[in-house]
Protein backbone atom coordinates (compact mmCIF):
# COMPACT_ATOMS: atom_id res chain seq x y z
CA UNK A 1 0.00 0.00 0.00
CA UNK A 2 2.90 2.32 0.85
CA UNK A 3 6.21 1.58 -0.77
CA UNK A 4 9.37 3.65 -0.29
CA UNK A 5 12.34 2.78 -2.52
CA UNK A 6 15.75 4.18 -1.60
CA UNK A 7 14.39 7.61 -0.74
CA UNK A 8 16.84 10.34 0.29
CA UNK A 9 16.16 14.02 0.91
CA UNK A 10 17.87 17.19 1.98
CA UNK A 11 16.38 20.66 2.14
CA UNK A 12 19.29 22.24 0.28
CA UNK A 13 22.63 21.27 -1.18
CA UNK A 14 24.43 23.03 1.64
CA UNK A 15 22.72 20.92 4.29
CA UNK A 16 23.10 17.28 5.28
CA UNK A 17 20.50 14.69 4.35
CA UNK A 18 17.40 14.67 6.56
CA UNK A 19 16.62 11.17 5.29
CA UNK A 20 18.99 8.69 3.68
CA UNK A 21 18.23 5.61 1.66
CA UNK A 22 14.81 4.89 3.14
CA UNK A 23 13.11 1.72 1.91
CA UNK A 24 10.08 0.04 3.49
CA UNK A 25 6.64 -1.38 2.69
CA UNK A 26 3.33 -1.08 4.46
CA UNK A 27 0.81 -3.72 3.45
CA UNK A 28 -2.91 -3.07 3.03
CA UNK A 29 -4.62 -3.05 6.42
CA UNK A 30 -1.33 -2.93 8.32
CA UNK A 31 -0.60 -0.63 11.29
CA UNK A 32 2.93 0.78 11.16
CA UNK A 33 4.37 2.75 14.07
CA UNK A 34 7.29 5.06 13.39
CA UNK A 35 9.46 6.40 16.18
CA UNK A 36 12.75 8.18 16.58
CA UNK A 37 14.35 10.98 18.58
CA UNK A 38 13.83 14.67 17.68
CA UNK A 39 15.44 15.51 14.36
CA UNK A 40 15.51 11.91 13.14
CA UNK A 41 13.38 12.73 10.07
CA UNK A 42 9.96 11.41 11.19
CA UNK A 43 7.89 14.41 10.10
CA UNK A 44 9.81 14.74 6.84
CA UNK A 45 8.95 11.11 6.10
CA UNK A 46 5.24 11.83 6.69
CA UNK A 47 5.29 14.79 4.33
CA UNK A 48 6.73 12.54 1.62
CA UNK A 49 3.82 10.14 1.82
CA UNK A 50 1.39 12.46 0.03
CA UNK A 51 4.01 14.27 -2.00
CA UNK A 52 4.11 17.58 -0.07
CA UNK A 53 7.85 16.86 -0.14
CA UNK A 54 9.18 17.48 -2.76
CA UNK A 55 6.20 19.02 -4.62
CA UNK A 56 5.46 21.89 -2.20
CA UNK A 57 8.46 21.86 0.11
CA UNK A 58 11.32 21.71 -2.30
CA UNK A 59 14.75 20.20 -1.81
CA UNK A 60 17.04 17.55 -3.22
CA UNK A 61 14.93 14.41 -3.46
CA UNK A 62 15.88 11.02 -4.83
CA UNK A 63 14.16 7.63 -4.83
CA UNK A 64 10.55 6.59 -5.39
CA UNK A 65 7.37 6.60 -3.31
CA UNK A 66 4.43 4.44 -4.36
CA UNK A 67 0.96 4.68 -2.86
CA UNK A 68 -1.31 1.80 -3.82
CA UNK A 69 1.06 0.87 -6.63
CA UNK A 70 1.19 4.35 -8.14
CA UNK A 71 4.30 6.49 -8.29
CA UNK A 72 3.24 9.69 -6.51
CA UNK A 73 5.79 11.71 -8.48
CA UNK A 74 3.34 11.36 -11.38
CA UNK A 75 0.32 12.46 -9.31
CA UNK A 76 -0.88 15.78 -7.96
CA UNK A 77 -0.99 16.11 -4.16
CA UNK A 78 -4.80 16.29 -4.18
CA UNK A 79 -4.94 13.00 -6.13
CA UNK A 80 -2.71 11.23 -3.60
CA UNK A 81 -4.72 12.83 -0.76
CA UNK A 82 -7.84 10.99 -1.93
CA UNK A 83 -6.09 7.77 -0.96
CA UNK A 84 -3.95 8.96 1.91
CA UNK A 85 -5.08 11.32 4.68
CA UNK A 86 -2.42 13.07 6.72
CA UNK A 87 -3.08 14.37 10.25
CA UNK A 88 -0.57 16.77 11.72
CA UNK A 89 0.48 17.39 15.30
CA UNK A 90 -1.52 20.59 15.65
CA UNK A 91 -5.16 20.20 14.53
CA UNK A 92 -5.54 24.01 14.48
CA UNK A 93 -3.44 24.04 11.32
CA UNK A 94 -6.02 21.84 9.61
CA UNK A 95 -9.34 23.34 10.76
CA UNK A 96 -10.58 26.51 9.11
CA UNK A 97 -14.37 26.35 8.60
CA UNK A 98 -17.14 28.02 10.61
CA UNK A 99 -18.85 24.83 11.74
CA UNK A 100 -17.87 21.20 12.15
CA UNK A 101 -20.32 20.23 9.40
CA UNK A 102 -18.79 22.72 6.95
CA UNK A 103 -15.33 21.52 7.92
CA UNK A 104 -16.24 17.93 7.14
CA UNK A 105 -18.04 18.83 3.91
CA UNK A 106 -15.10 20.75 2.47
CA UNK A 107 -13.08 17.77 1.19
CA UNK A 108 -15.89 15.77 -0.44
CA UNK A 109 -17.42 18.96 -1.93
CA UNK A 110 -14.13 19.56 -3.68
CA UNK A 111 -14.20 16.01 -5.00
CA UNK A 112 -17.59 16.80 -6.58
CA UNK A 113 -19.51 14.31 -4.46
CA UNK A 114 -23.33 14.65 -4.37
CA UNK A 115 -24.79 16.62 -1.45
CA UNK A 116 -26.79 13.66 -0.13
CA UNK A 117 -23.75 11.43 -0.01
CA UNK A 118 -21.72 14.17 1.65
CA UNK A 119 -24.35 14.31 4.41
CA UNK A 120 -24.13 10.53 4.85
CA UNK A 121 -20.33 10.63 4.93
CA UNK A 122 -20.37 13.38 7.58
CA UNK A 123 -22.75 11.34 9.78
CA UNK A 124 -20.61 8.22 9.30
CA UNK A 125 -17.32 10.02 10.06
CA UNK A 126 -18.67 11.82 13.14
CA UNK A 127 -20.04 8.54 14.48
CA UNK A 128 -16.67 6.81 13.98
CA UNK A 129 -14.90 9.43 16.09
CA UNK A 130 -17.77 9.70 18.62
CA UNK A 131 -18.52 13.36 17.83
CA UNK A 132 -22.08 13.19 16.42
CA UNK A 133 -23.42 15.81 18.82
CA UNK A 134 -20.83 18.37 17.66
CA UNK A 135 -22.11 18.59 14.07
CA UNK A 136 -23.30 22.19 14.47
CA UNK A 137 -20.47 23.25 16.82
CA UNK A 138 -17.78 25.82 16.03
CA UNK A 139 -14.37 24.10 15.71
CA UNK A 140 -12.55 26.91 17.55
CA UNK A 141 -14.68 26.31 20.65
CA UNK A 142 -13.69 22.65 20.93
CA UNK A 143 -11.03 21.26 23.26
CA UNK A 144 -7.70 20.03 21.84
CA UNK A 145 -8.84 16.40 21.84
CA UNK A 146 -12.16 17.25 20.18
CA UNK A 147 -10.38 19.31 17.50
CA UNK A 148 -8.08 16.39 16.74
CA UNK A 149 -11.12 14.06 16.42
CA UNK A 150 -12.70 16.55 13.99
CA UNK A 151 -9.44 16.73 12.02
CA UNK A 152 -9.54 12.92 11.72
CA UNK A 153 -13.24 12.96 10.78
CA UNK A 154 -12.62 15.59 8.10
CA UNK A 155 -10.15 13.22 6.46
CA UNK A 156 -12.47 10.25 6.85
CA UNK A 157 -15.15 11.99 4.77
CA UNK A 158 -12.70 11.68 1.87
CA UNK A 159 -12.79 7.89 2.47
CA UNK A 160 -9.03 7.46 2.30
CA UNK A 161 -7.58 3.96 2.38
CA UNK A 162 -4.56 5.10 4.37
CA UNK A 163 -4.40 7.34 7.44
CA UNK A 164 -1.05 8.87 8.45
CA UNK A 165 -0.88 10.61 11.82
CA UNK A 166 2.19 12.66 12.79
CA UNK A 167 2.41 12.93 16.61
CA UNK A 168 -1.38 13.29 16.76
CA UNK A 169 -1.65 13.51 20.54
CA UNK A 170 1.39 15.40 21.74
CA UNK A 171 -0.62 18.36 23.07
CA UNK A 172 -3.49 16.36 24.53
CA UNK A 173 -4.28 15.18 28.05
CA UNK A 174 -3.88 11.43 28.75
CA UNK A 175 -7.58 10.53 28.40
CA UNK A 176 -7.88 12.38 25.09
CA UNK A 177 -4.72 10.63 23.90
CA UNK A 178 -6.19 7.24 24.70
CA UNK A 179 -9.46 8.18 22.95
CA UNK A 180 -7.59 9.21 19.79
CA UNK A 181 -5.61 5.96 19.78
CA UNK A 182 -8.75 3.90 20.31
CA UNK A 183 -10.26 5.62 17.24
CA UNK A 184 -7.11 4.87 15.24
CA UNK A 185 -7.15 1.23 16.36
CA UNK A 186 -10.85 0.95 15.44
CA UNK A 187 -10.19 2.35 11.96
CA UNK A 188 -7.32 -0.10 11.53
CA UNK A 189 -9.56 -3.01 12.61
CA UNK A 190 -12.07 -1.88 9.96
CA UNK A 191 -9.34 -2.43 7.37
CA UNK A 192 -7.75 1.00 7.06
CA UNK A 193 -3.98 1.10 6.62
CA UNK A 194 -2.55 3.21 9.42
CA UNK A 195 0.80 4.89 9.99
CA UNK A 196 1.36 6.59 13.35
CA UNK A 197 4.45 8.63 14.11
CA UNK A 198 5.11 8.96 17.84
CA UNK A 199 8.16 9.59 19.94
CA UNK A 200 6.14 8.16 22.87
CA UNK A 201 6.33 4.46 22.07
CA UNK A 202 3.47 3.57 24.48
CA UNK A 203 0.97 4.26 21.74
CA UNK A 204 2.59 2.26 18.99
CA UNK A 205 3.19 -0.90 21.00
CA UNK A 206 -0.02 -2.33 19.49
CA UNK A 207 1.21 -1.74 15.90
CA UNK A 208 1.89 -4.67 13.53
CA UNK A 209 5.36 -3.33 12.78
CA UNK A 210 7.54 -0.57 14.15
CA UNK A 211 10.15 1.36 12.22
CA UNK A 212 12.84 3.25 14.14
CA UNK A 213 14.56 6.25 12.60
CA UNK A 214 17.77 7.78 13.86
CA UNK A 215 19.74 10.56 12.18
CA UNK A 216 17.77 10.12 8.97
CA UNK A 217 18.23 6.36 8.62
CA UNK A 218 16.15 3.32 9.40
CA UNK A 219 18.00 1.66 12.26
CA UNK A 220 15.43 -0.98 13.27
CA UNK A 221 12.30 -2.48 11.70
CA UNK A 222 10.25 -5.32 13.15
CA UNK A 223 7.36 -6.38 15.34
CA UNK A 224 6.89 -4.47 18.62
CA UNK A 225 8.41 -7.35 20.57
CA UNK A 226 11.43 -7.54 18.26
CA UNK A 227 11.92 -3.79 18.67
CA UNK A 228 11.31 -3.53 22.42
CA UNK A 229 13.59 -6.46 23.27
CA UNK A 230 16.34 -3.98 22.39
CA UNK A 231 15.27 -1.46 25.02
CA UNK A 232 18.89 -0.55 25.84
CA UNK A 233 19.56 0.39 22.22
CA UNK A 234 16.36 2.44 21.99
CA UNK A 235 17.18 4.38 25.16
CA UNK A 236 20.72 4.94 23.92
CA UNK A 237 19.43 6.74 20.83
CA UNK A 238 16.89 8.70 22.92
CA UNK A 239 13.66 6.75 22.52
CA UNK A 240 11.48 6.26 25.56
CA UNK A 241 10.48 2.62 26.02
CA UNK A 242 7.11 1.85 27.67
CA UNK A 243 7.87 1.37 31.38
CA UNK A 244 5.97 -1.92 31.47
CA UNK A 245 8.23 -3.22 28.68
CA UNK A 246 11.28 -2.06 30.59
CA UNK A 247 10.07 -3.98 33.65
CA UNK A 248 9.60 -7.09 31.51
CA UNK A 249 13.10 -6.66 30.09
CA UNK A 250 14.49 -6.82 33.67
CA UNK A 251 12.59 -10.08 34.22
CA UNK A 252 13.74 -11.45 30.85
CA UNK A 253 17.41 -10.66 31.49
CA UNK A 254 17.32 -12.48 34.84
CA UNK A 255 15.57 -15.49 33.29
CA UNK A 256 12.25 -15.11 35.14
CA UNK A 257 10.27 -15.04 31.87
CA UNK A 258 10.85 -16.30 28.30
CA UNK A 259 9.78 -13.18 26.42
CA UNK A 260 8.87 -9.57 27.12
CA UNK A 261 5.25 -8.43 27.57
CA UNK A 262 3.68 -5.25 26.21
CA UNK A 263 0.52 -4.78 28.28
CA UNK A 264 -0.86 -5.31 31.77
CA UNK A 265 -3.13 -8.17 30.69
CA UNK A 266 -0.23 -9.92 28.95
CA UNK A 267 1.91 -9.35 32.08
CA UNK A 268 -0.69 -11.01 34.31
CA UNK A 269 -0.72 -14.05 32.01
CA UNK A 270 3.07 -14.31 31.83
CA UNK A 271 3.51 -13.75 35.57
CA UNK A 272 0.85 -16.37 36.23
CA UNK A 273 -1.44 -14.04 38.14
CA UNK A 274 -4.25 -14.09 35.61
CA UNK A 275 -6.74 -14.40 38.44
CA UNK A 276 -6.10 -10.72 39.18
CA UNK A 277 -7.30 -9.65 35.70
CA UNK A 278 -10.60 -8.60 37.20
CA UNK A 279 -8.71 -5.81 38.98
CA UNK A 280 -7.86 -4.22 35.63
Amino acid at each position, binding site marked *: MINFKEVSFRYSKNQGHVLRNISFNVKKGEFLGISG*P*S*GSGKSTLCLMMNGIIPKTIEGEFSGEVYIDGEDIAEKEIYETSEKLGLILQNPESQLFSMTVEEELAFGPENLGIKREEIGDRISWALKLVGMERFREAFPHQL*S*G*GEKQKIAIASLLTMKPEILVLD*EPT*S*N*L*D*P*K*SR*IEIFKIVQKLNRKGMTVVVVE*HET*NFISSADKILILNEGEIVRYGTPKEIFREADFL*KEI*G*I*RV*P*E*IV*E*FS*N*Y*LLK*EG*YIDDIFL*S*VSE*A*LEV*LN*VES*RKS*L*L
Partner: protein
Amino acid sequence: MLKVENLCYEYESGFKLKNINFEVKGGESIGIIGENGSGKTTLVKNLIGLLRLKSGRILLNGEDASKMSVAEIARTIGFVFQNPDNQIFASSVKEEVSFGPQNLKMDKIEEIVNDVLKKTDLFKYKESHPFKLSGGEKQRLALASILVMNPKILVLDEPTSGLDLRNARKLIEIVKNLQEEGRTLILISHDMELVSDLCERIILMKSGEIIADGGIKDIFDDSNLLEKTRLDLPEIAKLSKILEFGVVFDPGELYRKWRVSND
Protein backbone atom coordinates in the same frame (compact mmCIF):
# COMPACT_ATOMS: atom_id res chain seq x y z
CA MET B 1 5.92 31.75 50.54
CA LEU B 2 2.66 31.63 48.53
CA LYS B 3 -0.81 31.54 50.01
CA VAL B 4 -4.03 31.47 48.01
CA GLU B 5 -7.22 32.25 49.93
CA ASN B 6 -10.73 31.79 48.51
CA LEU B 7 -9.60 32.70 45.01
CA CYS B 8 -12.45 33.04 42.50
CA TYR B 9 -12.18 33.97 38.85
CA GLU B 10 -14.69 33.92 36.01
CA TYR B 11 -14.16 34.14 32.25
CA GLU B 12 -16.77 35.77 30.04
CA SER B 13 -17.38 32.30 28.59
CA GLY B 14 -18.69 31.27 32.01
CA PHE B 15 -15.79 29.05 33.11
CA LYS B 16 -15.04 29.68 36.79
CA LEU B 17 -12.30 29.02 39.27
CA LYS B 18 -14.20 28.36 42.46
CA ASN B 19 -12.94 29.06 45.95
CA ILE B 20 -9.31 27.99 45.52
CA ASN B 21 -7.33 27.61 48.74
CA PHE B 22 -3.79 26.31 49.16
CA GLU B 23 -0.41 27.24 50.52
CA VAL B 24 3.06 26.54 49.17
CA LYS B 25 6.01 26.69 51.52
CA GLY B 26 9.49 27.79 50.50
CA GLY B 27 11.47 24.95 48.88
CA GLU B 28 8.35 22.82 48.39
CA SER B 29 7.57 21.13 45.06
CA ILE B 30 3.94 20.67 44.12
CA GLY B 31 2.30 19.26 41.03
CA ILE B 32 -1.00 20.65 39.74
CA ILE B 33 -2.76 18.02 37.71
CA GLY B 34 -6.14 17.67 36.04
CA GLU B 35 -7.53 17.13 32.56
CA ASN B 36 -7.49 19.84 29.87
CA GLY B 37 -9.98 22.52 30.82
CA SER B 38 -9.86 21.79 34.56
CA GLY B 39 -8.53 25.28 35.34
CA LYS B 40 -4.81 24.62 35.90
CA THR B 41 -3.59 27.31 33.52
CA THR B 42 -6.27 29.81 34.63
CA LEU B 43 -5.12 29.32 38.21
CA VAL B 44 -1.48 29.88 37.29
CA LYS B 45 -2.34 32.97 35.21
CA ASN B 46 -3.98 34.37 38.34
CA LEU B 47 -0.88 33.56 40.38
CA ILE B 48 1.39 35.45 37.99
CA GLY B 49 -1.00 38.39 37.61
CA LEU B 50 -1.87 37.86 33.94
CA LEU B 51 -5.47 37.40 35.09
CA ARG B 52 -6.79 39.37 38.04
CA LEU B 53 -8.90 37.43 40.54
CA LYS B 54 -12.51 38.49 41.10
CA SER B 55 -12.42 37.75 44.82
CA GLY B 56 -10.13 36.20 47.40
CA ARG B 57 -6.45 36.88 48.01
CA ILE B 58 -3.04 35.79 46.82
CA LEU B 59 -0.26 36.44 49.32
CA LEU B 60 3.35 36.41 48.18
CA ASN B 61 5.68 36.35 51.15
CA GLY B 62 2.80 37.78 53.17
CA GLU B 63 2.10 40.64 50.75
CA ASP B 64 -1.08 41.02 48.73
CA ALA B 65 -0.15 40.18 45.13
CA SER B 66 -3.25 41.93 43.76
CA LYS B 67 -1.52 45.23 44.54
CA MET B 68 1.60 44.22 42.61
CA SER B 69 2.27 44.68 38.90
CA VAL B 70 2.95 41.65 36.69
CA ALA B 71 6.63 42.65 36.63
CA GLU B 72 6.78 42.82 40.43
CA ILE B 73 5.19 39.38 40.76
CA ALA B 74 7.62 38.06 38.13
CA ARG B 75 10.54 38.83 40.45
CA THR B 76 9.21 36.15 42.79
CA ILE B 77 7.29 33.82 40.46
CA GLY B 78 8.88 32.81 37.17
CA PHE B 79 6.50 31.19 34.67
CA VAL B 80 7.79 29.07 31.80
CA PHE B 81 5.22 28.59 29.04
CA GLN B 82 4.43 25.15 27.63
CA ASN B 83 5.31 26.31 24.14
CA PRO B 84 8.70 28.07 24.24
CA ASP B 85 7.90 29.82 20.95
CA ASN B 86 5.40 31.96 22.93
CA GLN B 87 8.25 33.32 24.97
CA ILE B 88 11.21 33.65 22.61
CA PHE B 89 11.62 36.75 20.47
CA ALA B 90 15.26 37.93 20.44
CA SER B 91 17.71 37.23 17.63
CA SER B 92 20.33 35.43 19.71
CA VAL B 93 20.31 33.17 22.75
CA LYS B 94 22.43 35.67 24.67
CA GLU B 95 20.08 38.57 23.84
CA GLU B 96 17.04 36.53 24.79
CA VAL B 97 18.42 35.71 28.23
CA SER B 98 19.80 39.25 28.74
CA PHE B 99 16.46 40.96 28.03
CA GLY B 100 15.02 40.78 31.56
CA PRO B 101 18.18 41.79 33.45
CA GLN B 102 18.77 44.68 31.01
CA ASN B 103 15.25 45.98 31.60
CA LEU B 104 15.80 45.86 35.33
CA LYS B 105 19.26 47.44 34.87
CA MET B 106 20.83 44.66 36.90
CA ASP B 107 24.56 44.58 37.64
CA LYS B 108 27.01 42.06 36.19
CA ILE B 109 24.56 41.05 33.47
CA GLU B 110 27.07 39.14 31.38
CA GLU B 111 28.22 37.11 34.36
CA ILE B 112 24.64 36.25 35.38
CA VAL B 113 23.64 35.36 31.80
CA ASN B 114 26.69 33.12 31.32
CA ASP B 115 26.01 31.37 34.60
CA VAL B 116 22.39 30.63 33.64
CA LEU B 117 23.39 29.49 30.13
CA LYS B 118 25.86 27.05 31.71
CA LYS B 119 23.23 25.77 34.14
CA THR B 120 20.84 25.09 31.26
CA ASP B 121 23.55 23.62 29.01
CA LEU B 122 23.13 26.35 26.39
CA PHE B 123 26.43 28.18 26.72
CA LYS B 124 27.73 26.79 23.43
CA TYR B 125 24.71 28.27 21.65
CA LYS B 126 25.21 31.74 23.17
CA GLU B 127 25.48 33.47 19.78
CA SER B 128 23.00 31.23 17.91
CA HIS B 129 19.60 32.36 16.67
CA PRO B 130 16.93 30.86 18.99
CA PHE B 131 14.93 29.51 16.07
CA LYS B 132 17.87 27.36 15.00
CA LEU B 133 17.64 25.50 18.29
CA SER B 134 15.90 22.13 18.65
CA GLY B 135 12.63 21.82 20.62
CA GLY B 136 14.48 20.68 23.74
CA GLU B 137 17.02 23.50 23.49
CA LYS B 138 14.25 26.07 23.00
CA GLN B 139 12.51 24.75 26.09
CA ARG B 140 15.76 25.17 28.06
CA LEU B 141 16.17 28.70 26.62
CA ALA B 142 12.67 29.63 27.83
CA LEU B 143 13.66 28.32 31.26
CA ALA B 144 16.99 30.20 31.17
CA SER B 145 15.33 33.52 30.33
CA ILE B 146 13.14 33.10 33.44
CA LEU B 147 15.90 31.74 35.70
CA VAL B 148 18.11 34.72 34.95
CA MET B 149 15.65 36.84 36.99
CA ASN B 150 16.31 34.52 39.93
CA PRO B 151 12.66 33.91 40.91
CA LYS B 152 12.17 32.04 44.19
CA ILE B 153 9.15 30.20 42.77
CA LEU B 154 9.34 28.50 39.41
CA VAL B 155 6.13 27.54 37.59
CA LEU B 156 6.59 25.07 34.74
CA ASP B 157 3.69 24.26 32.39
CA GLU B 158 4.11 20.79 30.85
CA PRO B 159 7.89 21.25 30.54
CA THR B 160 8.61 17.90 28.89
CA SER B 161 5.61 17.79 26.56
CA GLY B 162 6.74 16.97 23.04
CA LEU B 163 10.35 16.37 24.08
CA ASP B 164 12.15 13.15 23.28
CA LEU B 165 13.76 11.07 26.01
CA ARG B 166 17.17 12.72 25.85
CA ASN B 167 15.85 16.28 26.03
CA ALA B 168 13.25 15.41 28.67
CA ARG B 169 15.95 13.84 30.86
CA LYS B 170 18.21 16.86 30.47
CA LEU B 171 15.43 19.23 31.49
CA ILE B 172 14.48 17.09 34.49
CA GLU B 173 18.11 17.05 35.63
CA ILE B 174 18.22 20.88 35.44
CA VAL B 175 14.96 21.18 37.38
CA LYS B 176 16.28 18.79 40.05
CA ASN B 177 19.41 20.95 40.43
CA LEU B 178 17.16 24.00 40.90
CA GLN B 179 15.20 22.15 43.56
CA GLU B 180 18.45 21.34 45.36
CA GLU B 181 19.23 25.07 45.35
CA GLY B 182 16.06 25.45 47.40
CA ARG B 183 13.82 26.86 44.71
CA THR B 184 10.07 26.32 45.07
CA LEU B 185 8.52 24.41 42.18
CA ILE B 186 4.96 24.43 40.87
CA LEU B 187 4.63 21.93 38.06
CA ILE B 188 1.60 21.69 35.80
CA SER B 189 1.62 18.35 34.03
CA HIS B 190 -0.40 15.39 32.77
CA ASP B 191 2.67 13.20 33.12
CA MET B 192 2.15 11.40 36.42
CA GLU B 193 5.57 9.81 36.27
CA LEU B 194 7.18 13.25 35.92
CA VAL B 195 5.07 14.66 38.75
CA SER B 196 5.96 11.73 41.02
CA ASP B 197 9.64 12.18 40.14
CA LEU B 198 9.76 15.92 40.89
CA CYS B 199 7.02 16.64 43.44
CA GLU B 200 6.10 15.51 46.92
CA ARG B 201 2.60 16.96 46.89
CA ILE B 202 -0.24 17.11 44.36
CA ILE B 203 -3.15 19.45 43.85
CA LEU B 204 -5.85 17.75 41.78
CA MET B 205 -8.19 20.03 39.83
CA LYS B 206 -11.51 19.40 38.15
CA SER B 207 -14.00 21.88 36.64
CA GLY B 208 -12.32 24.90 38.22
CA GLU B 209 -12.05 23.44 41.71
CA ILE B 210 -9.40 21.75 43.81
CA ILE B 211 -10.79 18.31 44.56
CA ALA B 212 -7.75 16.96 46.40
CA ASP B 213 -4.53 18.28 47.88
CA GLY B 214 -2.14 15.80 49.43
CA GLY B 215 0.89 13.54 49.24
CA ILE B 216 1.70 11.79 45.96
CA LYS B 217 1.13 8.29 47.32
CA ASP B 218 -2.26 9.07 48.90
CA ILE B 219 -3.57 10.61 45.71
CA PHE B 220 -2.19 8.11 43.20
CA ASP B 221 -3.43 5.21 45.34
CA ASP B 222 -6.98 6.56 45.25
CA SER B 223 -8.48 5.10 42.05
CA ASN B 224 -11.86 6.78 42.59
CA LEU B 225 -10.22 10.17 42.81
CA LEU B 226 -8.21 9.58 39.63
CA GLU B 227 -11.30 8.34 37.82
CA LYS B 228 -13.17 11.52 38.84
CA THR B 229 -10.48 13.64 37.20
CA ARG B 230 -10.26 11.43 34.08
CA LEU B 231 -6.66 10.69 34.92
CA ASP B 232 -5.40 7.28 34.02
CA LEU B 233 -2.40 5.68 35.70
CA PRO B 234 0.36 4.55 33.34
CA GLU B 235 0.39 0.82 32.58
CA ILE B 236 3.31 0.15 34.92
CA ALA B 237 1.53 1.77 37.87
CA LYS B 238 -1.64 -0.21 37.11
CA LEU B 239 0.41 -3.42 37.06
CA SER B 240 2.25 -2.57 40.29
CA LYS B 241 -1.07 -1.89 42.03
CA ILE B 242 -2.52 -5.20 40.84
CA LEU B 243 0.64 -6.98 42.02
CA GLU B 244 0.01 -5.30 45.40
CA PHE B 245 3.20 -3.22 45.42
CA GLY B 246 1.33 0.10 45.55
CA VAL B 247 1.77 2.72 42.82
CA VAL B 248 5.24 2.37 41.29
CA PHE B 249 6.34 4.30 38.19
CA ASP B 250 9.95 3.20 38.00
CA PRO B 251 10.51 -0.17 36.22
CA GLY B 252 13.72 -0.84 38.22
CA GLU B 253 11.93 -0.26 41.51
CA LEU B 254 9.05 -2.52 40.49
CA TYR B 255 11.56 -5.22 39.48
CA ARG B 256 13.31 -5.00 42.86
CA LYS B 257 9.98 -5.29 44.69
CA TRP B 258 8.88 -8.19 42.50
CA ARG B 259 12.19 -10.04 43.04
CA VAL B 260 12.05 -9.65 46.82
CA SER B 261 8.53 -11.09 46.91
CA ASN B 262 9.32 -13.94 44.49
CA ASP B 263 12.80 -15.13 45.55
